[in-house]
């Protein structure tokens, strides 16, 4: 096989390997969870948008809540904000930058992953967060499936 044919074959082999090796990333189903002591068993999508975008800190019945975010770049975070607020990561950054700059609100604190969010929500009164549906257990209650 001459050199040219070997090069073509090599490139084709690498390309095929890359295609096969590339995982098909599935978007996690995201759910909104709350502390088990919350006096509600569900919230609406509008309420989720309100509390996670800093527009308010109460849900129906006047219950005051504290929300927690996940770190920038987390797949579940992207899905959550796309579904609940219709915003991608860049739009979300711009949104919070404007609120922070004008002193109207500050973004919720962010934790590393589902495990950290679940631990914090389960141990904090009035806490609400979001995780992938596969991470749900009896330590928290599911309030919304956006």
């Amino acid at each position, binding site marked *: 096989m001459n050199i040219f044919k070997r090069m073509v074959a090599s490139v084709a082999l690498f390309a095929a390997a890359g295609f096969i090796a590339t995982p098909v990333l599935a978007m996690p189903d995201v759910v909104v969870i709350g502390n088990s002591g919350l006096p509600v068993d569900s919230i609406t999508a509008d309420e989720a948008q309100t509390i996670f975008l800093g527009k308010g800190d*109460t849900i129906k019945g006047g219950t005051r809540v504290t929300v927690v975010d996940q770190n920038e770049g987390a797949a579940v975070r992207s899905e959550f904000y796309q579904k609940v607020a219709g915003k991608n990561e*860049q*739009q979300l950054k*711009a949104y919070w*930058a*404007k609120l*922070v*700059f004008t*002193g109207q609100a500050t973004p919720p*604190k962010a934790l590393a992953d589902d495990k950290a969010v679940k631990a914090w929500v389960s141990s904090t009164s009035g806490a609400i967060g979001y995780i992938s549906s596969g991470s749900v257990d009896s330590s928290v209650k599911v309030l919304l499936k956006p």
Partner: protein
Amino acid sequence: MNNVVKLGIRMAVVGGFLGMGATPVQALDIGAMGNVDFTASNQQNYANSFSLGAFDIYGNQQIDTKTRVFFEFVLEDGGSGMGVDLERMFISRKFSSAFELSAGRYHTPLGYWNKTYHHGAIMSDTVDRPSFLEFEDASTAILPMHIIGLSAEGSVTGGAGKLGYQLAMGNSSSLDSTKPTNGRSELGLPNVSDNADKKAALIRVVYQPEGVPMHFAVFGMNESYAEAATAGGYLAQGSTLVAQRVAGFDTRYATDKFDVTAEYFNIRNGAQNGVGDGLTHTGKAYYVQVGYKVVDNWKVVYRRESVDFDAADEYFKLLGTEKGHKDVAGIRYDLDDSNALKFEIKRNTPDSSLNRQSDTTYMLQWAFMAL
């Protein structure tokens, strides 16, 4: 005490000191905003020009669960070269939703616009601020937009809505009665001293009714302007030139498609003996702005603004303020969340007593934010 014990104590002290550092809740967020403008006008001898707007760099960090720090500095060329101003720098601690205490340099709670909009042209729908709410180094500024001191703010929510307050107290401002800036004085903000040793005090109370997208607020300020001139001024440096009381209101109704904002200022200036006629005069200023989102990213805006005062008011004479009104009509197009184009026509109509013709200015602005 033997050397081992001494070493142990030193290590314990150092270790304790290191351990006292709070773990930041979030990383330092840095952002920048800026704008590039093109301005044309039918004013006599006006050179149509491109200009760099203020380049604003800000940082914000939640340093613990209740405390945050914020800074904002601006690079801008006011016509005599690029300069840097530390516009805002404060630390604030939120004890509860009803009480947040801040210290540093921040915007005075004089109305809605100044509390909401800072530098960063992309934040507002119009190219400029209302003329009389410009920052202290602008020729049309009539009130201090910044203060260095303490502030407290908070709100309580009930069935009828939300009631909020903002209190501020800080160094008083100054004026140089020799009018060293092109025949006028600029409002002086002392970052490191209070020359008059009389603190400025401000209050704003805001009510937001439940279920209605609007607010109504009243505000007030008690301020003294000290003589800044070291020689040749009306009074000795540090003496009070003008004692000022401001009272006003602001209101805003805003939905996704439509908004209307209005602010009114009553400005009572008591000139001291040896300053002008030594009497008290009252001026007023107001604006009304309406915005309407025609389609998704397109918004039209109109604003009427007005400044009126007694010609004998030495405060306005020192500032070189011009009575009259302005009409601003513009359109804004958001290319995306981080940059916008604005086109605006501003008609300036001086008061008839000034015997000056009206003039029209056309502005095109590309504003952006970088995150």
